[in-house]
């Protein structure tokens, strides 16, 4: 039999058409639920304090090894740079002045990319095709030369623990897709104009009504990009006489937005409400720098769910503080809207906090609803003013119709007006899946950060060499994960970030646990000491056998507090 010769190309190929039957394809985007046992309702018991997330620490030798690894990488990088500039000037052409023009970027600025990231470049930016649902199809590639890749046109269908697809709406077939397609027919492909000029259609108004009702606010504004929502928001609400108090782990878009507004910023320790209160008290007392005039207003900016740590903000306490000191509260629900709370209405729903007590709720449609863009929701007078002074309303494109179609239809599914029952199932599956995978990893002995109900599960790897190892081994086992390291995290806590989805089945998660177990044994990843739960016997490091984990996990993960067995 003649083997078909595959042609290698340097350009990413077009995906071949998939001729498997529709039912198979649907199942690959959203797995069927096998039994109702695999459901859970996520909700924080009212009145109970939020348990402080315990960040387990590895043995000191791991820290030491991590520092030494980076030291070696940096020293070797500098040595190579030093000699490279002499012997291979061509490779450094971009870093050297040429005919009186400065280089595009400094050698120092790009050192991290040239000398560290490039070694594990294949773990990032894997090109994909198709809907990134339960499975994600990554193009196979091999390293070619220093920076290039060769593609053979085949792809690897991996279980998807990498995409932001909390409720599993990344689908190319179904009611939401049909609705989005209908919107293309009825409204076109583009919004054609900024909102204030001629980019407002009845669909925009309907979409804003739907989202405002969903999050429990009087009115809302939608924006075509989540990043742009935050990056332009603060200019409308803050000026140089305003103080913005920001959590130290807030997303880049929030920090950029505050910088753009020219407001003063103070940072408080991540999720530390005591530090926050102390800071507010001092700031109110001290007033503005130099003049000591009182601040015009103080805005607290926090996120509902932190995407790198998997922590939730301590909303009940922050709301108390905010009321006590007459501050305003902005909550970025980029990751929590849809993913948390019994009704999927985000962090307020999860903690049973009245949304009216949060002044501005922001969120994105990328993560849970399979769309794109963001929203700001607040009181009517706020939003009305923002229709005239919010930068995106006047200077940037408005939300395109297909995206609104996806938003409206997915929200209808969640609320139960479209396909009754389906939304409920999705919400309870993400809650179950998050807890199931988190507890399983804890029992196996991995260090996992974050809150019990969080669908973001960072598995700590620490050593830089383990990041590509985990990524490549899991990729070969057909599991796609994201690895994150410096500068997105502190230098020593490199991690694999798993984003759980409602599209995954319990069997998928068992497969993930099995494979993680194998990888963890092979490259020594089971560092946990047991203080964050998961131990069979209290005080001992958890190192369950995988069979025991799979046998007990369904029941155990439904207990109110994960990993404490009495």
């Amino acid at each position: 039999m003649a083997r078909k010769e595959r042609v290698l190309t340097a350009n990413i190929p077009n995906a071949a058409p998939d001729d498997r039957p529709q039912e198979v394809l649907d199942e690959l985007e959203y797995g069927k639920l096998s039994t109702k046992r695999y459901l859970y309702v996520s909700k924080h018991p009212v009145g109970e304090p939020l348990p402080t997330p315990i960040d387990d620490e590895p043995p000191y030798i791991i820290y030491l090894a991590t520092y030494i690894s980076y030291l070696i990488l940096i020293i070797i990088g500098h040595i190579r740079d030093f000699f490279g500039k002499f012997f291979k000037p061509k490779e450094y052409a971009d870093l050297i002045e040429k005919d009186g023009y400065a280089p595009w970027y400094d050698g120092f600025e790009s050192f991290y990319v040239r000398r560290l990231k490039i070694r594990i470049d294949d773990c990032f930016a894997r090109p994909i095709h198709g809907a990134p649902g339960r499975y994600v199809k990554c193009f196979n590639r091999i390293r070619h030369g220093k920076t290039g890749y060769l593609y053979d046109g085949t792809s690897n269908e991996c279980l998807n623990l990498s995409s932001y697809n909390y409720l599993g709406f990344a689908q190319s077939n179904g009611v939401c897709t049909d609705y989005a397609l209908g919107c293309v027919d009825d409204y076109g492909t583009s919004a054609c104009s900024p909102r204030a000029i001629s980019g407002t259609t009845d669909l925009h108004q309907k979409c804003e009504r739907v989202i405002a009702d969903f999050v429990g606010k009087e009115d809302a504004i939608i924006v075509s990009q989540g990043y742009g929502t935050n990056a332009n928001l603060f200019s409308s609400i803050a000026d140089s006489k305003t103080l913005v108090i920001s959590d130290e782990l807030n997303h880049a878009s929030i920090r950029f937005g505050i910088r753009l507004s020219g407001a003063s910023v103070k940072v408080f320790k991540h999720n530390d409400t005591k530090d926050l209160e102390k800071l507010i008290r001092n700031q109110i007392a001290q007033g503005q720098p130099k003049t000591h005039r009182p601040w015009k207003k103080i805005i607290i900016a926090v996120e509902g769910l932190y995407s790198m740590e998997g922590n939730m903000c301590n909303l009940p306490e922050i709301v108390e503080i905010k009321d006590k000191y007459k501050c305003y509260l902005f909550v970025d629900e980029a990751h929590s809207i849809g993913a948390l709370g019994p009704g999927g209405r985000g962090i307020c729903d999860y903690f049973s906090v009245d949304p009216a007590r949060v002044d501005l709720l922001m969120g994105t449609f990328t993560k849970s609803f399979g769309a794109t863009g963001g929203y700001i929701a607040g009181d009517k007078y706020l939003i009305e003013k923002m229709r005239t002074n919010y930068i995106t309303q006047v200077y940037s494109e408005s939300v395109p119709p297909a995206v609104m179609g996806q938003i409206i239809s997915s929200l209808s599914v969640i609320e139960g007006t479209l396909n009754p029952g389906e939304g409920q199932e999705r919400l309870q599956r993400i809650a179950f899946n998050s807890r199931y995978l988190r507890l399983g990893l804890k029992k196996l002995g991995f260090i996992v950060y974050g809150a019990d109900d969080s669908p973001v599960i960072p598995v700590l790897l620490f050593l830089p060499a383990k990041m590509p190892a985990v990524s490549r081994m899991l990729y070969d086992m057909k599991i796609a994960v994201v690895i994150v390291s410096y500068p997105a995290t502190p230098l020593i806590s490199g991690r694999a970030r798993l984003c759980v989805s409602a599209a995954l089945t319990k069997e998928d998660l068992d497969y993930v646990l099995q494979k993680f177990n194998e990888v963890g044994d092979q490259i020594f990843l089971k560092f946990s000491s047991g203080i964050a739960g998961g131990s069979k016997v209290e005080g001992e490091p958890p190192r369950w056998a995988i069979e025991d984990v799979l046998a007990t996990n369904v029941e155990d993960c439904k207990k109110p507090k994960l990993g404490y067995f009495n």
Partner: protein
Amino acid sequence: MSDVVFTTTTTTTTTTTLAPTWDLVEATIAENFVRYLDSLGNLPGGQIILRYIKSSYKNDPIRSLFELALFIFALNYFLSSKKKENKSELVKFSQREIDELCDEWVPEPLIKELSDLEKWQMYSIPTIEGHNGSHVTINNKKVVNLASSDFLNLNESESVKEAAKSTISNTGVGACGPPNFYGTQDVHVRLEEDIAKYLDGENSILYGQDFVTAGSVIPAFLKRGDLCVVDSGVNFAIQKALIVSRCNIEWYDHNDMDHLEEILTEIKPVMDKQRPIRRRFIVTEGLFANSGDVVNLPRIIELKNKFKYRLFLDETLSIGVLGATGKGVVEHYGVPREEISITIGSMAMSFASSGGFCVGANPMVLHQRIQSIAYVFSASLPPYAAKVASQAIKEITSNLNADGSSVIVSQLQKKVTFAYEKLVSLSKSSKFFEVASGPHSPIIHLALNTQYREELNLPTLYGSPVFLSTGKPSKFLNEFDDYYNIESFLLQKVIDYVLDHSSTLISRSKLILEHENLPVLAPRLQIYINNGVTTEELSRLVQILPIAFNEVLKNVDSELKLISLNSEIGNYKPHYINY
């Protein structure tokens, strides 16, 4: 550190308990010192330090003490460097005082409510019922839409819609991840290739929203200490981008090449001495959003090459509109794209899609993939939007006239010229308006006649000149301006009149005065020429415009009457159905 501990403890013990004989003290010190030093040798690497100390500090205790002091100082410096805050400025309060201050503090509202004089701004935003395009439904009435930035009317193209639908049926709507984490699909890569090829660039990169493109590209290359020489009429996105980048800014008068040359010559001696050379850019727009002028590109290229600057060009409005095949000002003037180091553009305008892009040399684009924050920290463009833009480029480039120009682009250009010439000739006989934009701009700007504005005592420019004069933006937002508000309102009345009497929707320059950092031109009426509109429909508009201006302005002939319009502004009722 162990040495320090040692000296203090032994001296205190010896002075209090033992007889104060100096010999004894010395002996104890020596003995303990050696013991401590020896124990240092047990630590990993300690032997080396020990040998170093022994060999270099023999018989020189003063030097040892001095070095020790230096060491302590360095340690203290590094440990305290995190707390930079100037403590001397802080006032000391007791907890009770802080409690009182907290109780007394009354903050301002989060946002000031819309005043009666501002509400009309919100009411005058038109709502389109159903499909957006060259002809739309407003208030249940079919009207011609001359307020859409989709100049080539590709939003109504069936093949473009088909491209969107087939992609959605394959990939869903959202991309569900940032480009660097499984958010890059084959369609994104295809579009990057298509854009680079279409605009004759080496490589290109996509952004999820057009407005954030400038604000992310400029700070990726311009840092503190870098220099850019900027046209003083640039759009809002670039103003904000420059502020965020914190680079040094020199302004030249809008499109004034002689002034640009003057400035470049003036700073040349300083630049020549600069070592190492910092990045230097000339920053300008292709087709200016605020004024409707086309940049004098050949002169700029000549100057930038002479003085060795790179050129940043914002082609947001010009791509798809200028040049025989819509390749923007570059094609308009027939200069090669490689002369422009960074070109940015929008796909939400002529490409009937969404998002922005940046085109240029390979190292420039690759650097953005890691260092440009709007690319790194936000989700990818939806895959279908990428496909739509690819299809739009195909529509523009595949259907060509005999002379090699694109059919739809040349159709649009003819309509622009038609309307422009008609309006210029009409404006000559009108007391109220004049054409303010250039002949090639697809957005025709009509400003109130200069002489008429003088009669009404209206200022030539609004906003704040601080940024221009100091290079640093004003710390305060612009105040609400009565005149700006009224002048905009007059134009809105013209728009409403045209909508009611000839079923045509036009627009006006809508800027947020309080956010603008540069001086703002007087409000202008804007007609967005659209390829889907016939010349008959354009003629109808051209005929009604002088009448509309006349109807609205005939009674407004003095500053007093102008101000009295404020009562009418307060009563402006929503002109459009809201859902």
